[in-house]
C-alpha cells in the first residue's frame, strides 16, 4: 500500500445525518479522482441507536473498508466514547467541542480536535446537522485537499436551495479554515487524480445494470437489504419506460415476474432470504415452464428475520435447494459492487438462452455498502442475447410448433404468446413436447424421462456462458485462499499483505456458484499445498458445496457469522493461524480495548474473543 489512504469513521445516532455527511465527503473525494469504499454498521431503528459509517479513501481504489479508522467524526457523545479508543497513533478525532467532551484520555499520539461549532456555524443551534458540515470541512482540510470541490458538492446536493448551499459552504469553509489554523494535518495527505469516479451501491448498480440489459419489468415487495433496488427502479421507471410494481407479497412478485418474462419481456425481482423462501415454489414453476426469470437474493444475517441490518453469506443452501424436485437453475454471486453492474446482463442472457431461472446471490455488504466505480466501467452497451426466441410469425410454420420440442441441445425455440400458429399451454405439471400434461395420462415413463432429460441436457453447455473462477497471484503459491461473492475485495487485500509478509498465497474467487466450474477449481487446487476457504457464515455452506461437487476438502476454514463483515486483518491473522495448524478459525468482530463496559457498547470482553478456533471440520475423504 504505497498509495496514501485515510479511513474516516462517522458515528452518530440514526437521524444524526451520518449518511449525508459521508455522502458529501465521498462525492467531494470522487470528484477529485480519489476512490472510496464505504460500509455502514447500523441497527434496525429509524431514529436513535448508533450508526457507524466507515469510509476509506485512496487514489488506489480500496476494495473494502479496511481495518481501523484514523479519522473519527463523532456526531454525539456516545460515538465519541465508543470510538475514540480505536484510533491509531497519528489519528484524529473531530467533534463538536461545544457539546461533547471525551470521557477518557485518547490513545497515544491521537489528536483531539474539538470544533467550536456554534462559532463556526451559528445556525447549528437551530439545525444540529450543521455540525456535520463543519466537521466535514475540517476533515477535508486535514486530508490535505482544497476546498473548492467540497463547495461544489453542496451546490449539486442542494441545487434547488441556494440559501442552503450558502450556509453549508460557509460552515464547511469555517471548519476548513479552523482546522488549518488549529490542527495538525494528517501525515500522509491524499492527492487528487484524473480518474472519473461514480459513487454507488451494489443495489443501485444491480438496478442500473439490469435496466441496461433490457429489463423492462420490475416487481418487488420491500425487504432490506434489497429495497433500494426497488427504489432505484421506481424513481427511474417513467424516464426509462420500465413497468415497476410494488405488490402484496413476494409470492405475487415472482408470479408477476415470471408472467412478464413468459410474454417475452425481460423481468426481474429482488428480495432477501425470507422473501426468497416465499418465492421458492414458483421457481420450480419457471423451471417447468422453461420460462426465464432473474431473481436477486440479497443475503442478510439469518436465520429467519435474523439481524436485518447485518451481513452474511448463508443463503447458498436455500437457493441451491429452493423448490421441490430436480431441476436446472443458475446461481451467480457478484464479487464486488462493480461486478453487481455487469451481473444482471449475464444473468438475463443465460436465463433467456437456457430458459431457466437465474438467481443473483448478493449480500448486504455489497448492496448497501457503496464504492466508487470508474465511469468507463458503467458506460457500456451490453450486447443482448435473447437466445432462441421467436418474436414474429408470418404465415404458417413448416411443421406444427412444439413449445417443448426435444432438441439435441435441450433448448426448445420459445415463441412469445400473441403469435399466430404458435399456440401452446405451459403447465407446471409434467407435459409432453406440445405442452399436454402427462399427469392426465395413465403413466408415461418414457415421455416423462424424455422431458426430464431434455431439460437437464441444457446444463451440459452452460458453464461456457458463465463467469469462470478468477485466480489472482502466482499459480504455484503454497496456499490458496478461496472465497465467493462479496469477499473478493477483502481477501484480495489480505492476500497482497500476506505476500508482502512473505507468505506464499494466491487467491481464487468464485462467482458462478451453481453450476460449479469444478474442473477449473480442481486444477488450481492441485497446484497448491494448502486450501483455505473463507466465508461469511457458520457452517461453511460453500465448503460443503465444493466437496459435494468436486470432493475437494479444504485444509482450513475461516468463518465469520457475527453480523459484521471481514476486515483484511482478520484474514491475515487467521491464515497465519491455519498455517500454524488450526482447522477452523471463527472470526469475531468486537470493539477493542478498555471500555467494553460502556452501557451502549458491545457486551463481553475483547480478550481472546477476536478469533475462536474450532475443530471438527469434515474429515478428509
Amino acid at each position: 500500500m504505497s498509495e496514501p489512504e485515510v479511513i474516516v469513521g462517522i458515528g452518530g445516532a440514526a437521524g444524526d445525518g451520518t449518511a449525508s455527511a459521508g455522502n458529501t465527503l465521498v462525492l467531494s473525494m470522487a470528484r477529485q479522482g480519489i476512490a472510496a469504499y464505504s460500509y455502514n454498521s447500523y441497527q434496525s431503528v429509524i431514529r436513535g441507536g448508533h450508526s457507524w459509517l466507515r469510509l476509506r479513501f485512496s487514489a488506489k481504489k480500496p476494495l473494502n473498508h479496511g481495518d481501523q479508522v484514523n479519522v473519527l467524526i463523532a456526531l454525539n457523545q456516545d460515538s465519541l466514547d465508543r470510538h475514540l479508543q480505536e484510533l491509531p497513533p497519528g489519528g484524529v478525532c473531530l467533534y463538536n467541542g461545544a457539546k461533547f467532551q471525551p470521557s477518557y484520555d485518547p490513545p497515544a499520539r491521537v489528536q483531539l480536535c474539538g470544533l467550536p461549532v456554534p462559532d463556526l456555524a451559528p445556525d447549528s443551534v437551530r439545525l444540529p446537522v450543521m455540525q456535520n458540515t463543519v466537521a466535514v470541512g475540517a476533515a477535508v482540510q486535514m486530508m490535505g485537499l482544497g476546498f473548492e470541490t467540497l463547495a461544489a458538492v453542496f451546490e449539486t446536493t442542494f441545487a434547488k436551495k441556494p440559501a442552503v448551499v450558502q450556509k453549508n459552504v460557509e460552515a464547511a469553509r469555517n471548519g476548513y479554515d479552523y482546522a488549518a489554523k488549529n490542527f495538525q494535518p494528517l501525515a500522509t495527505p491524499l492527492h487528487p487524480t484524473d480518474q472519473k469516479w461514480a459513487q454507488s451501491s451494489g443495489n443501485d448498480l444491480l438496478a442500473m445494470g439490469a435496466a441496461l440489459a433490457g429489463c423492462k419489468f420490475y416487481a418487488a415487495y420491500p425487504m432490506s437489504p434489497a429495497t433500494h433496488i426497488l427504489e432505484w427502479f421506481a424513481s427511474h421507471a417513467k424516464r426509462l419506460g420500465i413497468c415497476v410494481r410494488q405488490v402484496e407479497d413476494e409470492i405475487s412478485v415472482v408470479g408477476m415476474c415470471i408472467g412478464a418474462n413468459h410474454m417475452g419481456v425481460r423481468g426481474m425481482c429482488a428480495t432477501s432470504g425470507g422473501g426468497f423462501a416465499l418465492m421458492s415454489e414458483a421457481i420450480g414453476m419457471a423451471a417447468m415452464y422453461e420460462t426465464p426469470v432473474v431473481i436477486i437474493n440479497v443475503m442478510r444475517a439469518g436465520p429467519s428475520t435474523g439481524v436485518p441490518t447485518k451481513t452474511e453469506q448463508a443463503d447458498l443452501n436455500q437457493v441451491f435447494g429452493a423448490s421441490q424436485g430436480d431441476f436446472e437453475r443458475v446461481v451467480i454471486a457478484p464479487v464486488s459492487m462493480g461486478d453487481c453492474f455487469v451481473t444482471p446482463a449475464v444473468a438475463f442472457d443465460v436465463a433467456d438462452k437456457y430458459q431457466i431461472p437465474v438467481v443473483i446471490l448478493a449480500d448486504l455488504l455489497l448492496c448497501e455498502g457503496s464504492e466508487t466505480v470508474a465511469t468507463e466501467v458503467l458506460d457500456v452497451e451490453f450486447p443482448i442475447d435473447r437466445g432462441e426466441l421467436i418474436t414474429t410469425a408470418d404465415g404458417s410454420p413448416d411443421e406444427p410448433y412444439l413449445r417443448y420440442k426435444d432438441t439435441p441441445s435441450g433448448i426448445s425455440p420459445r415463441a412469445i404468446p400473441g403469435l399466430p400458429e404458435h399456440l401452446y399451454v405451459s403447465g407446471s405439471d409434467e407435459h409432453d413436447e406440445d405442452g399436454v400434461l402427462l399427469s392426465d395420462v395413465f403413466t408415461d415413463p418414457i415421455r416423462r424421462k424424455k422431458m426430464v432429460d431434455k431439460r437437464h441436457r441444457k446444463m451440459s453447455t452452460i458453464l461456457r456462458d458463465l463467469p469462470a473462477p478468477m485466480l489472482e497471484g502466482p499459480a504455484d503459491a503454497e496456499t490458496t485462499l478461496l472465497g465467493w461473492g462479496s469477499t473478493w475485495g477483502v481477501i484480495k487485500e489480505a492476500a497482497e499483505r500476506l505476500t508482502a509478509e512473505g507468505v506464499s498465497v494466491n487467491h481464487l474467487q468464485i462467482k458462478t456458484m451453481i453450476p460449479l466450474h469444478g474442473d477449473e477449481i480442481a486444477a488450481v487446487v492441485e497446484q497448491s499445498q494448502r486450501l483455505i476457504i473463507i466465508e461469511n457464515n457458520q457452517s461453511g455452506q460453500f465448503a460443503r458445496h465444493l466437496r459435494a461437487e468436486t470432493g475437494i476438502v479444504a485444509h482450513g476454514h475461516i468463518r465469520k457469522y457475527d453480523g459484521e463483515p471481514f476486515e483484511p486483518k482478520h484474514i491475515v491473522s487467521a491464515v497465519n493461524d491455519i498455517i500454524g495448524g488450526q482447522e477452523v478459525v471463527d472470526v469475531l468482530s468486537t470493539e477493542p480495548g478498555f471500555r467494553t463496559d460502556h452501557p451502549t457498547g458491545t457486551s463481553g470482553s475483547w480478550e481472546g474473543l477476536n478469533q475462536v478456533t474450532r475443530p471438527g471440520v469434515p474429515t478428509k475423504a
Partner: protein
Amino acid sequence: MTAPATVVEVKDFKPEVHSDWCPGCGDFGVLTALFQACAQLQIQPHNLMVISGIGCSSNLPGFIRSYGAHTLHGRLLPFATGCKLANQEMTIIGTGGDGDGYGIGLNHFIQAMRRNIDVTYIVMNNEIYGLTTGQVSPTSETGMKTKTSPHGNLEGMLNPMALALAAGCGFVARGFSSQIKHLVELYKAGIEHKGFALIDVFSPCVTFNKLNTYQYFKERIYKLEDEDHDTGSFHAAMDKALEWDPKIPIGLFYRNPDPRPPLDSLDPALTGQPLVHQDYTIDSETRGELIREFM
C-alpha cells in the same frame, strides 16, 4: 396482431385434447360458454391467453385452443397480472376454482381487484375441493359435511361477492354453469369491461359435493336481470351479495358506473406500445445521465 383478421368460430377454440372432467361436471358448461363468448367477441385464439391455477377447474386452459398457462395452486392472478402488464393487447382470462381463488389465492384476488388489473376472472365455485377428492372449501356452507369436516364445517362461508364489492371491484357477477346463454352474456360483458371483472360461477361437482347439486341451485337461483336490480348501485349489490338461502341471485350484481381506469392504462411505461414490443436499449445519452446521478 400480424395475422389477418379472420372470422372466428366456436370450433376454432376447440382443441384436440379432451377434457378429463367427470361426466356431468359443471365445468363443461363453463368451458362451452367460454368458447361461445370468445367467438361472439371475435377474439383471435392467438390474442387470447387463458391462465389457471391448480384444481379440476384449473385444467381448463388445456381444453381451449389459445395461449394458456396452468400455474400454481392459487397463483394465477399474479402471473396473469405480469402477462397483462407485459402485453396489454392480449385478452387475459383467469379460470380457477374456489379453493384456488378464495382459499390459498385470496390475497392476490383482493389485491388484484384493488389494483384493477384488466383480467376477467372466472371462478368455478363448486363449494368443495374437487381435484383433491372432496375436502371442505372456504365457500362450503357452515355445517356442511366433507371428508375433512366429518361433523360439519365449523367455519363461516366465505362470500366472494361481498368481498369483491368491498375490495372495490368494478364488475361483479355470478352465473350458473347450466345456464350457458346467461353465462355467455356475463363473460362478454366481463371481458369488455375495462378493469378487473369477477364472474363467480356455480359449477356443481357431481362427484364430491352432494349438497350444492344442480337441483340445489335450480331450486334457489333467480336472475337479477329478471328483477328490478340497479347494477350501478353498490348498496343494492351488497344487499344481493348477502342473499343466500332460500333464494340465491345470479347475474350482474354490480358494474361501477364510474369505473377506475385499469392499471395498464395508468402505468406510464405502458403508454403507446405494449412492453413486449418496446425497444429495450437505453441510448448513450440517457446512460450518461444515469451515471452522472452517481457523481
